[in-house]
Each structure stands twice: as C-alpha cells, then as structure tokens.
C-alpha cells in the first residue's frame, strides 16, 4: 500500500510519519501531484494557520489536485480544517471538500484557548474509521479553531460546548486532534484509516 504525506509545510509531518512507521507503513513525503494522485491513501498533516496553509497549497498547485482525489484522504488538525469550506482564521477560503465552516473557540471562564490537552471522543455515527473506538477514548488536542457539529460529524468532543473531533464527507476524512500523539487510541484510529 502506498501512503503519501502531503508536504504542505506542516511541522508535525515528522511525527505523523513516525506514527505510520510504528504501524509498519513507510509513507513518503511529497508535493508531487502525480505521486499524490496515484497513492492508495493521502494524508494532509498540518500545524500552523489556515491562511499560510492554503497559500502553500496554492503555491504548490495542489488545490485542484486534492479536491479531485477519489482515494481515502485524511486531514489532521489544521489539515482537517483545510478540507473544510471556510475558516474564520484570517477569513480563509479552504478546499471545500467537507461542507463545514471552521470557527474560533470563544474564550470563557475555565475554558482557555487554545484548547490544549487530552479530551474524550464520543461517537456520533457508525463508520469504519471508528472501528474499536470506545466511548470516551482520550485524544490529544491542540487548536484554537474548531468545526461545529453537523451531519459530517463522526465523533464529537466537549469543550464548553460540543465540536467535531472526527469528520467525513465521501472519501475525505478529518481528525481535529493529533492521532500521532494520542497514544494507543491514536494508533488505532490511524490503523483504521489505513484499512479503509
């Protein structure tokens, strides 16, 4: 199986790659359109901000490439947000393959922004990506922007109010947390993605 990591400048690329290696998969890091198109699985990692993230994809001429992919695609953290329609972060139009709008967490007493740390996943739908996921499994989050709950939500998480922690639309999937840093729960979810 060929798995590619889209090299869009995210700083967690190394961590995602190591997490896949721990699952026995050697993913290649690439920004090459034909290599991305021909891969069995495509992962869009990303740490950073939406606007430079999209700028980088445009610069690499990967916007239409990613939009037209038909194999399973997984966006992680910012990578997931880039799959959505729009982000409130610098009012950025994103890839638009998952019909969701990303908005900033509202600060409230007892709820710091960024939402940083381990929080629980709660299943909202049946999906092979959630195989063996147990109610309340812990995942590691670091983000200031979030996707509200909608019909694309596979799992939700509570932080003041609920938001989407795993989403999907067709062949496009997203995880708001960092599966590569979510211990055995993260490994289980990455394995599920590889088996889609």
């Amino acid at each position, binding site marked *: 199986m060929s798995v590619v990591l889209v090299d869009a400048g995210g700083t967690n690329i190394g961590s995602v790659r190591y997490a896949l290696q721990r699952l026995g998969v050697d993913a290649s890091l690439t920004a090459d359109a034909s290599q991305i198109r021909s891969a069995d699985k495509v992962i869009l990692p990303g740490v950073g901000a939406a606007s430079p993230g999209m700028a980088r994809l445009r610069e690499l001429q990967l916007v239409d490439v990613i939009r037209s992919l038909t194999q399973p695609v997984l966006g992680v953290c910012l990578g997931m947000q880039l799959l959505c329609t729009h982000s409130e972060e610098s009012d950025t139009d994103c890839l638009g393959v998952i019909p969701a709008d990303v908005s900033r967490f509202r600060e409230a007493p007892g709820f710091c922004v*960024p939402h*940083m740390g381990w929080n629980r996943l709660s299943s909202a739908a049946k999906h092979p990506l959630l195989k063996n996921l147990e109610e309340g499994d*812990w995942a590691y989050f670091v983000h200031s922007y979030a996707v509200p709950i909608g019909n694309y939500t596979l799992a939700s998480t509570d932080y003041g109010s609920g938001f989407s922690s795993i989403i999907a639309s067709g062949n496009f999937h997203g995880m708001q947390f960092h599966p590569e840093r979510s211990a055995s729960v993260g490994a289980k979810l990455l394995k599920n993605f590889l088996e889609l």
Partner: protein
Amino acid sequence: MLSRRIIPCLDVRDGKVVKGVRFRDHVVMGEIVELALRYRDEGADELVFYDITASPEGRSVDRGWVERVARVIDIPFCVAGGIRSVEEARAVLHAGADKISVNSPALERPELIDELAAAFGVQCVVVGIDSMRDADGEWRVRQYTGDPSKTRSLSRGTLEWMIEAQRRGAGEIVLNCMDSDGVRKGYDLEQLTAAREVCSVPLIASGGAGAMEHFRDAFTQAGVDGALAASVFHSGAMAIPELKGYLQQQGVVVRLQEMAANE
C-alpha cells in the same frame, strides 16, 4: 471534559537526563529515550525536555535526541533550551517536537515570541518563566537558570512578563517557582493562583511537587491545567498510575484508560 495533565520534566545535559536541587548539583538520572518510554507507558500526558545548559552556553538544543524521542514516543512532547530564532525552532519542530518552549532568549528579545507565533501558530509556542520572590515580596523573573554562575535577576515582574508573553503569542505558560523547586514541599499555590488570574492560556505549574496532595492542590486550588514534576518521578518516589488514581478519587479529571490499555 479536558483532563488535567501530568507532565514529567526531563532536564537534559550532555545527552543524559539529570536533576538538581534548586537548579544546582545535577546528578544523572538516566538515558533520555529510556526514561521517555517509561513515562509514556506509565501514563504521562506529555513530556518536557529542557536542555538546561544550552542557553547559558549560547547554543541551541541538540536535535539528534529530539528525533530519537519523536520516533518512539506517541504522546506530545515539548523541547526547551536555547532556541533563539524561528529557524532553530523550525529545526526542533521538524525533528518531531510538538512544541518549543522559550525562556531566557525571550527575555533577551521578547519579539522572538511574536515571530514564533506567526511562523508556527500560538499552539506550538510555550513560554517558560523562572520566578523568585525578592526580599521586597515581589515575584520577579530569573534568566539563565540552567547554570547558577550565570543566573541573572531581572527587574521584570513575573506577572507583568506573563501578560506580555501572552499578548505576544504565547500559547501556554510554564511557571517555575524557583523558591519551591526541588525541595518537594508543594507547588507555590499563592503565586500560581495569582498567575492564573492573569493567564488566559493553559498554565502549567512547576517546582515543588513532593506528594500527591501537592498535585491535587495545584489543580483544585490554583486551577492550573497541568503540573510538571521531575525528581519525584525520576526517583521512583511517586508512580504516575497511583497519582492519577488518587487525583481521580479527589474529583480531578485525569486520563486513565490509556494506562490500562497499555498493560
């Protein structure tokens, strides 16, 4: 519900984990990767590595061990030690660290925080603050604390610096209360409570953990998001699974189920 984080801190010197008392007299505690794996297996929520001599020696952190840790560890970790520029931070993040923490270099040049936040987002940027209470009762920051002969007292107030650091883009603050560090008499609840008042990003307590009650008090009284400790874990005096079990009994939300899954 977000859990409270238990964060073992590994001070790194010459590629080994060391621990001193009140930042002095360091003794070797073990190999970096070995200790990192041990804590991961015990249920640590995150790890912090401080290359304690990098800043006083004017060099950046050694990236070789960062990469070795990143390959085997599947929980988040933060690296600190002499990171002075966006390029140095990028190298550490690309080696696999999830966050970088800046302390002395941010005091030298506060704009560094703005630059790091702009380049990587605030979620990657931790500002570490070493603080001591002066004779006049004020908490003020210290610089270059990794080497006692180079440690400097600054006129900057701790809380004032904490506010400025957040304004510039700190996504998390680690407040190390040096008066209580290494002596295991408990976290400085008074200072942490004052810090919590002005800290709207995650706040991590550091310095003074000796008993399980100390962790509870930091969470329930000072309202910190995470508690960092070193010697109490390295020495084997306290095991993380027991600590977390105790905290849960005390009504503190902690991540427990992973540990059972790993056994």
